[in-house]
């Protein structure tokens, strides 16, 4: 029997699970998330291993969903020395890189900024040829100055030619030492947002490297020689090599893991997932087993970006949310929270702060701590507060639906004891087993994906055959990345006709995903 370990880092807790080959939960654990993130990961890993009693050599895979990169960006710490190169002059000069990004981030990342001639039109024509001489000069100037480079060319989602050629030239001059982030691999059309995403990616390359190496070493210290994967924010896995190249894709993998885990635990592919944590409640939409992606620009650390992100709404309500009673009988709920200090701060645990958890315990809706500590609170008031809490979630559920019809709601996360079995907008409320660690389970069961995104001319093969071709490419990419060919399915197709273009040009994006190749499980280390 082979096993896998899944770990997910949340704002309050770091959860770990061990699953067997058939995804049965063997052991689960919750530890406090630590400030350095890593020590919390290692602790939860050791705990869940000890609980499971599984022989270490039987653990074949280790999946990690982590907030390391997000934290680095938000805290502006541990960021790489980067250069920003934009290929687009004479266009784009009126909006330089990092304009509109918060000043502190701009100061830190904007030390080496270059704009040179090149880029493409919307229909794939060159605006002007790539200025290779200038690029060589820039590369020489950067020698020894930077450890990572963000490369963005105008309309690279339509033609990646100049980005690829520029990467070649830079590597000729600087060698393989300097990490390159290419924008067409990260974001979609919308220059500044894609460029920002690429810049942030370049800035956290070393954070990802350190995290990966630390995780692998921690596993080895435990006697585990597993193949390591990172969770990415579309609900699929990436290899360590890929994660180190595209660390930005780990941002928001936590909520994605919850959504995927909830899907698996409830046996549903289409539903709303409500994940109640210690500080916030995140609501996402499950479509065909994967999270719905946001169609709007998403800010990360104050910078507008446009790479794929799960569509989420987050409200300030969790187990540790502080409830304040006023003299006049009114009350407020949050938005602040005692967070991971709930076990010492909450009234039922002997603390001094009235929290959302205390409200449900006082109403007898959950058995936790010492209910006598909250028996003094007026019952009608408690009911009012509870009603308001549920309304907050119901309003958020309503915002995430695409139509007026009721949908199934899956409740996960440690704080989901806060919510009732009936809610407006929910056709049914499902509380699956292991709901408290759905995120770690989501990380452990994530699939391997492959994707193609390219402009096709429909005139050559017709729409149907072109789509089939794109699907084939996506499937073969997934298999190449380690997916079992028998389980690979197409999970997403998008085709956008490009206006004004001859030949019926259409941008097609297809994503395929499947289970990890079983053959990989047989490999003995």
């Amino acid at each position, binding site marked *: 029997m082979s096993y896998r370990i899944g770990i997910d880092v949340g704002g309050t807790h770091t959860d770990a699970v061990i699953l067997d080959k058939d995804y049965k939960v063997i052991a689960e654990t919750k530890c406090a998330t630590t400030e350095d993130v890593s020590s919390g990961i290692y602790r939860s890993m050791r705990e869940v291993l000890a609980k499971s009693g599984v022989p270490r050599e039987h653990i074949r895979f280790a999946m990690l969903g982590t907030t390391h990169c997000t934290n680095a960006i938000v805290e502006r710490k541990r960021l790489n020395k980067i250069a920003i190169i934009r290929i*687009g*002059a*004479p*266009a*784009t*000069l*009126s*909006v*330089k890189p990092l*304009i*509109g990004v918060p000043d502190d981030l701009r100061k830190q990342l904007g030390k080496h900024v270059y704009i040179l001639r090149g*880029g493409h*039109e*919307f*229909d794939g*024509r060159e*605006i*002007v040829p790539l200025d290779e001489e200038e690029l060589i000069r820039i590369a020489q100037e950067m020698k020894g100055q930077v450890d990572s480079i963000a490369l963005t060319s*105008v*309309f690279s989602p339509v033609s990646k030619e100049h980005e690829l050629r520029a990467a070649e030239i830079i590597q000729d001059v600087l060698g393989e030492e300097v990490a390159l982030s290419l924008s067409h691999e990260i974001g979609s*059309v*919308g*220059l*500044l947002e894609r460029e920002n995403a690429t810049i942030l990616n370049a800035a956290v390359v070393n954070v990802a490297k350190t995290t990966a190496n630390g995780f692998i070493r921690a596993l080895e210290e435990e006697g585990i020689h597993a193949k390591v994967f990172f969770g990415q924010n579309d609900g699929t896995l990436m290899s360590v090599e890929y994660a180190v190249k595209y660390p930005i894709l780990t941002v928001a993998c936590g909520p994605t893991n919850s959504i995927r885990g909830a899907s698996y635990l409830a046996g549903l592919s289409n539903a709303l997932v409500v994940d109640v944590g210690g500080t916030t409640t995140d609501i996402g939409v499950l479509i065909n087993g994967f999270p719905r992606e946001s169609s*709007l620009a998403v800010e990360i650390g104050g910078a507008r970006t446009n790479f794929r992100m799960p569509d989420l709404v987050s409200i300030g309500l969790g187990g540790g949310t502080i409830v304040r009673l006023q003299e006049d009988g009114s009350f407020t709920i949050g938005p602040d929270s005692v967070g991971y200090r709930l076990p010492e701060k909450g009234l039922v645990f002997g603390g001094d702060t009235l929290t959302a958890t205390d409200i449900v315990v006082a109403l007898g809706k959950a058995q936790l701590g010492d209910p006598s500590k909250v028996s003094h609170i007026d019952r009608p008031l408690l009911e009012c507060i509870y009603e308001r809490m549920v309304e907050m979630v119901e309003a958020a559920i*309503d*915002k*995430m*639906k*695409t*139509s*007026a019809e009721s949908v199934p709601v899956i409740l996960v996360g440690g704080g989901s004891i806060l919510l009732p079995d009936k809610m407006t907008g929910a056709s049914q409320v499902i509380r699956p087993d292991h709901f408290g660690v759905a995120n770690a389970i989501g990380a452990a069961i994530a699939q391997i994906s492959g994707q193609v995104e390219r402009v096709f001319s429909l005139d050559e093969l017709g729409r149907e055959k072109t789509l089939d071709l794109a699907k084939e490419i996506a499937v073969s990419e997934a298999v190449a990345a380690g997916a079992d060919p028998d389980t690979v399915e197409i999970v997403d197709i998008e085709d956008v006709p490009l*206006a*004004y273009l001859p030949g019926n040009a259409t941008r097609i994006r297809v994503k395929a995903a499947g289970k990890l190749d079983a053959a990989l499980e047989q490999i003995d280390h």
Partner: protein
Amino acid sequence: MRLLGKQEIEDMAVGAALLGTGGGGDPYIGKLMALQTIEEFGPIRLLSIDEVPEDALVVSSGMMGAPTVMVEKAPSGQEAKAAFKTLEAYMGKEIFATYPIEAGGVNSMLPLALAAQLGLPVIDVDGMGRAFPELQMVTFYLDGISASPMVIADEKGNVNLLNTIDNVWAERIARAATIQMGGSVMFAIYPMNGRNLKESGIRNILQLEEGIGRTIRLAKEQNVNPIQEVLKLTKGFELFNGKVVDIHRKTETGFARGTATFEGLGNNKGEKLQLRFQNEHLIATTEQRLLCVTPDLIAVLDEETGLPITTEGLRYGARAVVIGIPCHPKWRTPKGIETCGPGYFGYDVEYVPVEKLAKKGALLG
């Protein structure tokens, strides 16, 4: 003359989105260009129309083409310079200042960015007092002023000077050239003298834009209802308070047309509002009553933040307040209503000013 700094630009962008009445393109990239301009050249000079000499040559600046192209292939900053130089050479006269053609959306912000690059001031005036989709939908057209001679220029250095027999031909030729030039170009258009601009333009519109943005920002800081404050400032009316329950869109002859249905909340509980749009919001009705119709302005504001929501941003579940703002009196003339009243957009409805509708409400026949 006033000097505009970064805060003024941020406020104006919010006001521009509101006066864009759901369309007009996202002012965001125009705002960033203006902010960069301020960093490079210092504050932007804003002139009141009274500071413009009668015989001064003034020209509108902005973009034409697909906003989706512009957000990828952002302007170089040289296009407008080339366009203005070409126009000056042709007209044999120096340009005194520039002004926005519309107060809503991206073209309200671009002249602010271009002005400093051109070394010119911006005049606090526009030709719409809001945003409209077509080139002839300006007060200048009502007053018989030609869009030509006009120039379009791209970042590569291509410049086209057009002298067309009317504004429909200007639109047609310029549109075709724009596609060849890469899908997004900068224009210099509606050149006229100071006297004509004074008579024909809509005054103090940038000031209003800025005021709207500032009002919404300060309301948040002072914890007062931003929507009520905006209504006071714009002399507008709250039309409907509700939640989006259905959106129906289709693309027709290059325009995004559609209908959004709102279910009433609060005072409007039990009622339904239908909002029809073609890029911009054009007509708001309940089952029985007409609430507001073009050329009066219809804006959808987020119930909580007071920030305007665009037609693309309308989604099921959005809680919003729909407001109506009286348009400039020039649009209420017979020619104004013919140019952008309900009939022009294909609605079989008589134009009734929003303030009259707000008082009694007109029953739909």
